[in-house]
């Protein structure tokens, strides 16, 4: 199977400030749905999710590395559905530092400065990406 690449048009959606939704599944088959303030572009084949107090999501990923992220572009009437597989976790380095800085900024804007704290940058490989349009005509 060939590598899946993220289209360029998805990058602004990751940076639009709208929370994304993340789905995972435990080894016993129980799904979990949570929201996350941001998804981070690593390269055309990888995304990073912030590991903050994400306990159930992280436990599920350790058992079953598959995840699904929905990225919302409300003004374009579009949702991007991205399927992922966990690759690695980083607790320092440029990806971690960039995410840490951006999370602090988001926390400050949303009154959550004492709550949001980055534990790790979890890096995922993109396994599929689909653009769903739901505008007035669809």
């Amino acid at each position, binding site marked *: 199977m060939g590598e899946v690449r993220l289209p360029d048009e998805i990058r602004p959606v990751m940076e639009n400030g709208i929370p994304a939704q993340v*789905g995972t*599944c435990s*080894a016993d088959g129980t799904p979990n*749905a949570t*929201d996350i303030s941001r998804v981070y572009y690593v390269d055309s084949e990888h995304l990073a999710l912030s590991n903050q107090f994400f306990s159930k999501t992280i436990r599920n990923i350790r058992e079953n590395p598959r995840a699904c992220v929905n990225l919302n572009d*409300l003004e374009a009437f579009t949702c991007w*559905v991205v399927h992922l597989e966990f690759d690695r976790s980083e607790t320092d380095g440029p990806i971690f530092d960039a995410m840490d800085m951006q999370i602090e900024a988001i926390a400050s804007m949303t009154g*959550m400065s004492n709550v*949001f704290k980055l534990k790790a940058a979890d890096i995922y490989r993109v396994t599929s990406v689909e653009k769903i349009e739901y505008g007035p005509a669809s």
Partner: protein
Amino acid sequence: MIPEEIVTFLEGATVGFAATRDAHLVPHIHFVAGWIVGDDRKTITCFFPPNYSKVLMPSLQDNGQFALTVLGSTSGPKASKPPRPDVDFHECYQFKGDYATSRLANAADAAVVERKGESFRKLFVPLFGFSEEACAARFKKPALAMTFPVREIFDQTPGPGAGRRVET
């Protein structure tokens, strides 16, 4: 039984999404346009838009596993006094259970979704600057109503208590 204060939260909440998983344990996320708690406070019925995911029903029919996450409320038990919409909308709960029934959505369901859309506009247009058209497109007349009995509730409000199981 869903605690009364969580029922009040659900009535005021504006953002809903759900997770299912397929036979290969691949998770899928679904936008939920509206929801209503059953009279016995043991079930929740979710309303899905016309373009709901093709994997929703096959996943539910395969294994029944369903997780609904709801946030965007200023009427939850943790709401600030006086209310602070910019902070209060983070309150969040996840409801887990097994698929029970589904049917075509009807006019009463559409009215629930219309109210959710109006609440969403009131809360998030000032916070995020969404346009009226963008909000309206998200809360179209629903196509599918799906009911599940709630097995477990988890507090997912960001913070150290996230993940705590709520007594039912």
